[in-house]
């Protein structure tokens, strides 16, 4: 595909991509750019903004739960807030966070390409993301008020409620389109634009995880697309397909929803696992243990993750046969995840470990994700799930794997690639303090939810019995610690952005291709397309000969 904005004569490689002069000036040089790095940063501004919005909503929920009864808000307000928190976090933060920001920025750099395969499509994906976001915001102020269905939009409630479900659902549809186009773009990029010598099994593992993620995006998202369209049609003209009074079956809605939404949790977690596989070898100064199993387990997760959606419906009235099969397959999906965790730990073994901030976040991830993953097995087993379904145990599990997984790794990626993206260093000591601060707040907030969920505290209620109050108080205090830690971390990064010292090309001693180019990278990434002669993560002879060890 032709790239329109590169109308710069002669050598542009020395000028970084912030200062390069293109066809457009000022704000238009960003809004009309087809450069993957700028698009990645534009995603970043949107994603972080919506993360902060949804985080604020979460804080309000925790404040309401501080004491029993109606204290801060009415039941309807609480319903709207948890719906918004879920929808924004899932569709506007978690799904696009690592792939759309860091995938866009670093996939071409890591495989030695100048851009993605379809740069204009890439820009279009960003616009679709923003249009979806604007529609989601508009839906708050129009129609029958803020949606109150929860992020799963379950029928029949979602076709009965008077709140503005149609527009929010349409926003999710548009966001899905954005995801699909990004997925197509990344698959094409990985197939077509790897530099000479960059064979499939010399690709950094982050690229492998993006590859698996992109396939899920392409193959799963359309199913939610048609499901959401059916909800809108149901509300607008009463087509009847999901309406039990007309003969429709709400259970089929749940199937359709989870056929997408379960693979979607792997859209959320796989890129994070890829980042972990980058950070651990870099800070252990050791080749990754089990490169091929890690790469293949990404594909394995993508494949098996497609077949386990029924475990969200154990209590919905599906047949015993299918429940047993779905439960068994759910256990299978833990295997590739386990392979990854063991390989990461094995990489650490006898490594020369530097506990810098990105590494600290990554170690935190392994700790939290293991707890969350094991809790997932508790929920995947039929008999325990019947006891725990729709309780705070599920909420705790979900936040341990999603926030503890994707969220924490989002922070880790921010720190790991910050010098490359912005050409500045942040304050290392403050970043480490933030990581520990977040670790304390996180566990303080979500661990009590396991306990009260096990005791029977149902999710999605604004009120509760007094015996649960002690856990709610701990969780709410935890939310204050967590949020202040996150704000402290962002503040530290912002200070680094404004006043940080210039970053060297390779501050961490990484071996993948993005560390061979200047920080920040030039417009065309590589002055000369590199030729790769070895696999990634070759840390074998680190005696001042790092130049030669670059991939």
């Amino acid at each position: 595909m032709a790239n329109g904005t590169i109308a710069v004569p002669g050598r542009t490689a020395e000028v970084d991509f912030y200062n390069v002069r293109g066809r457009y000036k000022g704000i238009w040089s960003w809004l009309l750019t087809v450069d993957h790095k700028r698009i990645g940063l534009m995603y970043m501004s949107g994603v972080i903004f919506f993360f902060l919005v949804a985080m604020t909503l979460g804080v309000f929920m925790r404040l309401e739960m501080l004491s029993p009864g109606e204290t801060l808000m009415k039941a309807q307000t609480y319903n709207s807030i948890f719906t918004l928190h879920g929808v924004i976090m899932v569709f506007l933060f978690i799904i696009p966070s690592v792939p759309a920001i860091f995938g866009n920025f670093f996939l071409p750099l890591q495989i030695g390409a100048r851009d993605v395969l379809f740069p204009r499509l890439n820009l279009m994906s960003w616009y679709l993301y923003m249009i979806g976001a604007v529609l989601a915001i508009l839906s708050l102020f129009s129609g029958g008020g803020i949606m109150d269905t929860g992020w799963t939009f379950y029928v029949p409630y979602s076709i009965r409620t008077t709140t503005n479900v149609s527009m929010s659902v349409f926003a999710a549809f548009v966001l899905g389109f954005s995801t699909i186009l990004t997925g197509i773009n990344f698959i094409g990029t990985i197939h077509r634009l790897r530099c000479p010598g960059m064979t499939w099994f010399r690709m950094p593992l982050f690229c492998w995880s993006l590859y698996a993620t992109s396939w899920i995006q392409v193959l799963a998202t359309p199913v939610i697309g048609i499901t959401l369209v059916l909800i809108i049609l149901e509300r607008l003209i009463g087509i009847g397909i999901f309406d039990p009074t007309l003969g429709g079956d709400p259970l089929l809605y749940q199937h359709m929803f989870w056929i997408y939404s379960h693979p979607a949790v792997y859209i959320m977690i796989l890129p994070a696992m890829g980042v972990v596989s980058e950070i651990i070898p870099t800070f252990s100064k050791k080749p990754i243990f089990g490169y091929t199993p890690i790469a293949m387990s990404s594909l394995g997760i993508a494949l098996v993750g497609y077949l386990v959606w029924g475990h969200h419906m154990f209590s919905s009235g599906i047949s015993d046969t299918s429940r047993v099969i779905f439960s068994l397959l759910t256990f299978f999906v833990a295997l590739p995840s386990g392979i990854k965790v063991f390989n990461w730990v094995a990489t650490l073994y006898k490594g020369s470990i530097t506990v810098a901030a990105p590494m600290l976040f990554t170690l935190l991830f392994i700790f939290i994700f293991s707890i969350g993953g094991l809790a997932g097995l508790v929920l995947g087993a039929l008999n325990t799930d019947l006891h725990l379904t729709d309780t705070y145990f599920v909420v705790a599990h979900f936040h341990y794997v999603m926030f503890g997984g994707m969220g924490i790794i989002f922070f880790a990626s921010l720190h790991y690639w910050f010098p490359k993206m912005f050409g500045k260093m942040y304050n290392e000591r403050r970043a480490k303090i933030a990581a520990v601060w977040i670790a304390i707040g996180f566990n303080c907030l979500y661990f009590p939810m396991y306990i009260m969920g096990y005791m029977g505290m149902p999710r999605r209620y604004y009120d509760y019995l007094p015996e649960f109050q002690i856990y709610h108080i701990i969780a709410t205090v935890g939310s204050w610690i967590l949020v202040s830690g996150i704000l402290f971390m962002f503040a530290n990064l912002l200070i680094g952005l404004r006043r940080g010292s210039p970053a060297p090309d390779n501050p961490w001693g990484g071996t993948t291709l993005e560390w061979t180019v200047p920080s920040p990278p030039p417009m065309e990434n590589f002055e000369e397309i590199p030729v790769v002669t070895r696999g990634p993560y070759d840390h074998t002879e680190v005696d001042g000969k790092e130049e030669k060890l670059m991939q």
Partner: protein
Amino acid sequence: MSNHTDTANEEIHEVHMHRDDFGSKMGMWLFLFTEILLFGGLFLLYAGYRFIYPDGFAAAAAELDVLLGCINTVILLTSSLTVVLAIVALQKNNKKLSLFFLWVTVICGLVFLVNKYFEWGAKFHHGIYPKGPALQEMSEGEVMYFGLYYVMTGLHALHIIVGLAFIGFIMWQIKKDIITSTNFQRFENSGLYWHLVDIIWIFLFPLLYLIH
């Protein structure tokens, strides 16, 4: 990148303007996968409801006009053929013939839509539409059938309209010599899209019209 070996010179931006026909076609195929899954969701619902309401589906399917469905099938298959012929004609540098075949395709597509309009119109006339008087008298199975019928054929008709827009755009680009006998990947991609729309109809036709 097709020409990464000769980038050592100063024409760095040259590489950025590269053309990758294979990659472009690959992107189109990936997009077609997503279309298949979009309709796949509806086929899944069709299977589910057919299993729940076999009698209602049989009764409702009898209401459709098989002849009209057959005619539309023939029309769409012909239009797929003419798209292929148009591509071959352009490859052989016969611009005029290529445009002629594309006109035939467009006319076929429009006739299909007109037939669909009359088909839907007749149903509406008899009160068979969501919340319509006749449909409310029918059994649950028939309501499900017609719900799916309208969604599936409606979404398909929407794809026809999009496909026609693509083909119109291609015709304009052929006229302007942007698409030529050496640079026709965009044309081929639109052709692929049109075939997909055709293939989906090939599945819709027996499922909705023929199985009683």
